């Protein structure tokens, strides 16, 4: 067996290749004849097939590459390879060639399917596909419960003994070693024009290396074209419990980073080992996974990272940039929302054509269930490719992910063309683009001498928006495959019937057929026939015809007369049967082709309503950040400065370019300044929440291990979380987004400003002190885990030890690094992101926010922190902090407390609402936090509770949600109070912010108005108008679909047989299912409804 390889090179520079097309044809005929065809290694059973494999396809319009057309050309193939291609006059047809005149046809290079799960063994198919297969649902259809449930708990197969510790890190897996023959899948893909496909494993984070497989329907030996095209990566999650790492998106990203670092280390160590010629040095660990990743880290092998949503595109890009990968991103169809970022990155994409069907909006109920973002995407999805192309983004198109590729692929591709994708670009996306991304240009993608003889013969231009052209044949490896489409016949027209052997009992018909057979109908697939001026039911299957003429024409009254026949060119012939079984022969010749149905070409201009340039999609999206007035003066307000100026009645706030310029009375703004008359209003600094889980994608906890300080919330911000906007509407401007509390040493936090409408990076608070989330008590010892956990630690005793041990490891790690730098070590120490994070803590470069309740554990951690030199920024929740407040104050830690939550679990039975006041009295900087998407909307009245319980003065109480959390987060130099020089983050209230009657009227961040009541109403009103227009449009489309197809997607036709109602379940199960369902949705999707079901006090799902 011979593989095509890069060395088998016809790799001429682009310009010379083009020349070769036209001038080297003759010469190469001889060269090609000298090459040898594929020689099978298996013994021949029966007779050898020695049919010559030399073909000349003549008379066609040949598109050798996108934009390169030979109007009338000749294509010569020899032994599976293109021997010559060029204009008719310039290509000599070899004497031994079989001739294929295809006048009027168009020939394209064979299409490359950039991703397929065909040919994969079941164990490598993605979880969703496999569950569907079990349930008997169509491929890609909606499976039963669990088909999409986030965690995939099964371990994928591994094929190396010495490999990664993590079952989801399988870069060593080679599809070339395990793919299986699948001639049915080959036929399905060929029907669409594909001749080769990139077979891609569907399991794992590092999924392994794909293979290019020829769709020739043969065994793997004949089908494998090239192995190890690219490494494929996806953000796949394991379980929420032990052994499941990663259990969260942030864990998956951390695992990818660590694995790539490990690969670099592994390569360096083995290099060193070979240099040392083993003298005195122990061999490094053998690890096939890391060895396999070397080709990725050195940039030799492309890496395809799969995105699940548009934010993943940015995450993939970041990983690619950090490790300088040869990156390709497998998209989702929503890339148009990230067009700017993608245009800047210039990373090639693989795009699906999975345009949604018109949403179900038939009843007001159903319409109410459909989000505006969904309606917008329905309208915008077909424009995705065109918009990206217009921005200079290169991409391939794939049929993967389509429910019914046989009908959807070309329909959708042409729809994309209609919506702005240039036909040439569409062709490139199926040929040259994937060939380029995956380094296959020497083999496929163009029609040139030496390329594999893969091409598509079509009845016309396949790529025109209104094209009805069909693919009549596909050639793979120089072998011709007819398509089903080529077997379709159009029998519409007028036919003259004759028959022989009709018995006399058939009456007058026996002598002469009663008139002509007339066949019409709107489409070729649904012909309607009349014979003898009576309707005659007609079915056409491929080339077989069955006609049921009226029995009266044959002198009968009852029964059915059948005429069965076969169509060849302009003749149908076959056998007829009378009701009594008497047989006769019949044939028909076409007299005239049916005139095109006189359908008035209603040229209705399609109207578009969806907003495409606002983010996030759907309601309340913004087209860029709100304007920042150069000068802004807020006049006559009661100013709660939370700063040295205290409260100022009738005060003015002057703002310049996003910063507070001056605070006082009777301030004058420069001419042209924006003025706000705030007479009767109150103004406070923007509120700050020191404990939030808003805007985290796919899991707030990496709960699979006791120590996961390598994971970073900053990697997974969800800028579409509607919670951001709702919290803005309550005056919140800054939030500390924390990892959950499922493990003693959780993940790295991210401080954000609530700059709704921006992408994740714009949310980040620049320069915030890095931090990490730790936790103590019931959550981390998993006392409520069901089923019970045995993960270490199970006691508060073990919690201390796990922390201590980790920091001891970190110290040793640091020392080892030092020794390496001093040249004392043979091998470089392995970089360990987990321990590096811990080292940062030991140096005070990363501060600790620790979830804690009971005084014993709090005191334990205080002592530990003192011993290790940790900087504790905050004790979080800290409901028994009032018992040891002096000790908290002593180490300079803050308290970010719940106000009045208590008794939801055993460790909080001693919580008291006076705790905040008591801690403050002991000298602790106290803030109140939310840990809840609902509470985060009304932090101002949480502050009032410090007044009620413990008598904190009003202005000091307000600091619990302004200046104090800013101090805790080390950002009080810029936010937390109204002071000259600080960021213009402020809130305008209808009354004292400490009053329950107060309403937040405006929220400003950086001198930009991110929320205002009137603007809120206006944005909702315009969203409503847009929504109604889209609903009307969707109704019209659904009406058309229902009329033509009987039922649209999701309709009765797809629902399948009715299933029995589910049996009654125990209530606990129902309850859990409800929680799980909600959790699962949240786990996966951006654009969720903002219902926050997971926080640090949730015990059920942790």
């Amino acid at each position, binding site marked *: 067996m011979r593989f095509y390889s890069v060395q088998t090179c016809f790799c001429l520079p682009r310009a010379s290749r083009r020349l070769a097309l036209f001038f080297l044809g003759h010469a190469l005929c001889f060269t090609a004849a000298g090459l040898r065809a594929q020689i099978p290694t298996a013994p021949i059973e029966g007779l050898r097939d020695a049919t010559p494999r030399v073909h000349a396809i003549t008379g066609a319009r040949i598109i050798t590459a996108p934009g390169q057309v030979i109007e009338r050309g000749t294509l010569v193939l020899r032994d599976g390879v293109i021997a010559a291609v060029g204009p008719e006059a310039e290509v000599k047809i070899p004497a031994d060639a079989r001739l294929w005149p295809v006048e009027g046809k168009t020939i394209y290079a064979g299409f490359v399917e950039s991703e397929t799960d065909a040919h994969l063994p079941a164990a490598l198919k993605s979880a969703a596909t496999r569950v569907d297969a079990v349930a008997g649902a169509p491929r890609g259809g909606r499976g039963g419960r669990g088909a999409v449930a986030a965690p995939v708990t099964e371990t994928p197969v591994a094929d190396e003994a010495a490999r990664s510790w993590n079952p989801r890190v399988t870069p060593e897996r080679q599809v070339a070693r395990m793919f299986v023959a699948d001639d049915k899948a080959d036929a399905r893909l060929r029907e669409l024009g594909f001749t080769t496909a990139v077979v891609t494993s569907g399991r794992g984070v590092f999924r392994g290396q794909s293979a290019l497989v020829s769709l020739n329907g043969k065994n793997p030996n004949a089908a494998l074209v090239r192995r190890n095209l690219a490494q494929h990566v996806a953000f796949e999650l394991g379980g929420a419990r032990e052994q499941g790492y990663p259990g969260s998106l942030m864990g998956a990203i951390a695992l990818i980073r660590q694995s790539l670092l490990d690969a670099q280390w592994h390569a360096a160590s083995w290099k060193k080992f070979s240099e040392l010629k083993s003298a005195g040095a122990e061999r490094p660990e053998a690890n096939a996974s890391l060895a396999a990743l070397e080709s990725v880290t050195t940039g030799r092998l492309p890496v395809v990272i799969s995105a699940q949503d548009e934010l993943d595109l940015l995450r993939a890009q970041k990983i690619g940039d950090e490790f300088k990968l040869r990156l390709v991103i497998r998209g989702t169809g929503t890339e148009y929302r990230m067009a700017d970022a993608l245009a800047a990155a210039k990373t090639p994409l693989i795009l699906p054509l999975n345009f949604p069907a018109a949403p179900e909006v038939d009843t007001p109920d159903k319409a109410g269930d459909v989000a505006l973002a969904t309606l917008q995407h329905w309208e915008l999805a077909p424009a995705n490719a065109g918009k990206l192309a217009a921005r200079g983004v290169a991409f391939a198109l794939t049929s993967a992910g389509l429910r019914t590729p046989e009908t959807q692929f070309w329909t959708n591709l042409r729809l994309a063309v209609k919506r702005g994708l240039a036909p040439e670009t569409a062709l490139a996306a199926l040929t040259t683009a994937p060939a380029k991304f995956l380094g296959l240009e020497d083999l496929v993608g163009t029609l040139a001498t030496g390329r594999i003889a893969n091409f598509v013969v079509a009845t016309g231009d396949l790529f025109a928006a209104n094209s009805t052209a069909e693919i009549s044949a596909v050639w793979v490896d120089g072998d011709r495959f007819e398509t089903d489409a080529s077997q379709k016949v159009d029998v519409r027209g007028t036919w003259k019937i004759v028959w022989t052997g009709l018995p006399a009992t058939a009456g007058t018909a026996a002598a002469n057929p009663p008139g002509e057979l007339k066949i019409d109908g709107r489409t070729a697939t649904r012909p309607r026939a009349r014979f003898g001026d009576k309707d005659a039911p007609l079915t056409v299957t491929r080339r077989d015809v069955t006609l049921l003429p009226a029995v009266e024409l044959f002198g009968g009254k009852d029964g059915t007369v059948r005429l069965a026949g076969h169509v060849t060119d302009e003749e149908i012939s076959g056998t007829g049967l009378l009701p009594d079984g008497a047989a006769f022969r019949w044939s028909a010749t076409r007299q005239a082709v049916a005139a095109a149905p006189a359908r008035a070409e209603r040229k209705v201009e399609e109207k578009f309503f969806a907003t495409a340039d606002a983010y996030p999609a759907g309601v309340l999206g913004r087209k860029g950040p709100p304007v920042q007035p150069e000068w802004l003066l807020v006049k006559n307000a009661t100013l709660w400065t939370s700063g040295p100026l205290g409260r100022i009645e009738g005060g003015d706030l002057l703002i310049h370019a996003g910063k507070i310029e001056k605070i006082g009375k009777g301030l004058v703004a420069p001419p042209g300044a924006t003025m706000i008359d705030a007479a009767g209003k109150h103004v406070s600094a923007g509120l700050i929440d020191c404990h939030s889980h808003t805007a985290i994608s796919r899991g707030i906890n990496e709960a699979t291990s006791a120590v996961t300080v390598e994971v970073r919330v900053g990697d997974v911000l969800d800028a579409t979380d509607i919670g951001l906007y*709702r919290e803005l509407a309550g005056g919140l401007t800054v939030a500390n987004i924390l990892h959950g509390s499922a493990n003693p040493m959780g993940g790295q936090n991210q401080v954000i400003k609530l700059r709704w409408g921006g992408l994740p990076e714009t949310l980040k608070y620049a320069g915030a002190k890095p931090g990490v989330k730790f936790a103590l008590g019931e959550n981390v010892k998993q006392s409520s885990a069901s089923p019970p956990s045995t993960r270490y630690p199970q006691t508060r005793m073990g919690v201390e030890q796990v922390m201590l041990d980790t920091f001891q490891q970190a110290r040793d790690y640091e020392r080892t690094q030092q020794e390496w730098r001093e040249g004392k070590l043979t091998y470089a120490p392995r970089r360990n992101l987990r321990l590096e994070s811990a080292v940062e803590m030991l140096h005070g470069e990363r501060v600790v926010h620790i979830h804690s309740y009971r005084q014993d554990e709090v005191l334990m951690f205080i002592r530990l922190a003192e011993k290790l030199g940790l900087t504790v920024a905050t004790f979080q929740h800290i409901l028994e902090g009032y018992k040891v407040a002096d000790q908290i104050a002593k180490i300079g830690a803050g308290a970010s407390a719940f106000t009045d*939550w208590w*008794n939801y679990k055993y460790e909080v039975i001693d919580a008291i609402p006076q705790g905040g006041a008591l801690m403050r009295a002991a000298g602790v900087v106290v803030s109140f936090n939310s840990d809840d998407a609902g509470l985060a909307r009304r932090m101002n009245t949480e502050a009032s509770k410090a007044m009620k319980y413990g008598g904190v003065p009003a202005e000091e109480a307000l600091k619990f949600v302004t200046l104090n959390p800013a101090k805790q987060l080390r950002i009080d130099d810029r936010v937390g109070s109204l002071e000259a020089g600080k960021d213009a983050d402020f809130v305008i209230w209808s009354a004292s912010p400490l009053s329950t009657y107060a309403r937040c009227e405006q929220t400003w961040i950086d001198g930009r108005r991110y929320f205002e009541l009137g603007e809120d109403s206006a944005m909702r009103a315009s969203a409503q108008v847009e929504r109604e227009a889209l609903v009307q449009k969707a109704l019209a489309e659904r009406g058309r679909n229902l009329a033509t197809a009987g039922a649209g997607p999701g309709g009765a036709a797809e629902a399948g047989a009715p299933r029995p109602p589910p049996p009654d379940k125990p209530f606990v199960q129902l309850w859990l299912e409800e929680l799980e369902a909600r959790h699962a*949705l949240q786990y996966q999707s951006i654009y969720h409804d903002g219902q926050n079901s997971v926080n640090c006090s949730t015990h059920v799902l942790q």
Partner: protein
Amino acid sequence: MCSSKFLSVLVFAGAAVVIRASDNIPAPKQSVPVLLRGATIHTVSGADVRGDLLFADGKIQTIGAKVAAPAGATVLDVTGKHIYPGLIAASSGMGLTEIGAVRSTVDLAETGLINPNVRAQPAINPDSEMIPVARTNGILTVLSVPQTAGLIAGMSTLIRMDGWTWEDLTIRPTVALHVSWPRMAISRAPNSPSPAEDQQRALDARITKLRDTFAAARAYLKAKEGAGKAIDVDARWEAMIPVLRGALPVFVQADEVKQIEAAVAWAKQENLKITIVGGIDAWRVADLLKARDVAVIVTSVTDLPLRREDAFDAAYANSAKLQAAGVRFCIANDGASNERNLPYWAGKAAAYGLPPAEALKAVTLYPAQLLGVGGELGSIEAGKRATLIVTDGDPLEIPTKVEIAFIDGARIDLGNRQTRLYEKYKKRYEQLKK
């Protein structure tokens, strides 16, 4: 053997700690008349009165600018203070749950779908620490409600927040039958855990089950009345007889507009008197609720909007819209441990459009009326129970303190576990200073 024995002792010890009694001593019955002098009396049902308030034998006697003290009366000078009726929490788990995560302390929901026969009353723990904590903020009357993950939760009980036993606490042993309407929203998201058709089938089955239940109960009643002799007792259908006869209302937990519409239609078909509990979407169908005279116990003032597309203030502004449409309503809290925050939910509704006087009624007179005790509680009127609070300001504002409280004329202890811990640990810091 040895270690497992040790463990079981630990478990037992844990349980013993959990079911500890609160340290507050219930007040004795009012024995002498009490005259509160010099306050602003917020009667709620009428105009404010500056003056005096006299109550005796647990009942309010006289309200006036100047009321003479009867012989032997206790006179309290509360000049400058404010008197309000005790606040009423119309939907609570009070007494049925203690520590959420500790299963052994939670008696909120019986297993099974159909539980009309279970009653909150005998499961209410009068020593719950939550009772004194709530009443410290003026919550003096509470509807204790069973919950369910099924369809029929059981019977609620109206309690006063002081007493030695659940019998002491009981104001009305059964107030309503509580039905939880099935969730009706169908997720059509491509990543929904189950297909829309399956969700619809499950929903249809549940609604059929609810209809069948009422049909079975009616059949039972008919058999019982028509048999002319004793029939075998079915505890569930027996419990539903007062409901079927119209003597007991049905409270239907429903938040989404589809649930509310379906429940209202169902009530008409079944000829039942219902009240909606939850009602986050009620404002969308205020006209329907008004037309059918269906009241709403709004437990959802601070809930998140149900849908991404809903206005950020959809739940805040719900009560104001119901009030403007003339729908009978009250505001409740739907919790237990933080029942004390009930007045602030009313304040929040006021911030988003509910007139402040209506907000006050929404946690006093309106819940009394909706729970069938409008003649006894909810306002300061002669003849009503002397269940009231004396404050230093508007109870809907958080910093306001409840200084004195009476339940049926008896002055109750406003301390609680938390105030005691507060005092205890203040001592620690005093000692540290010395």
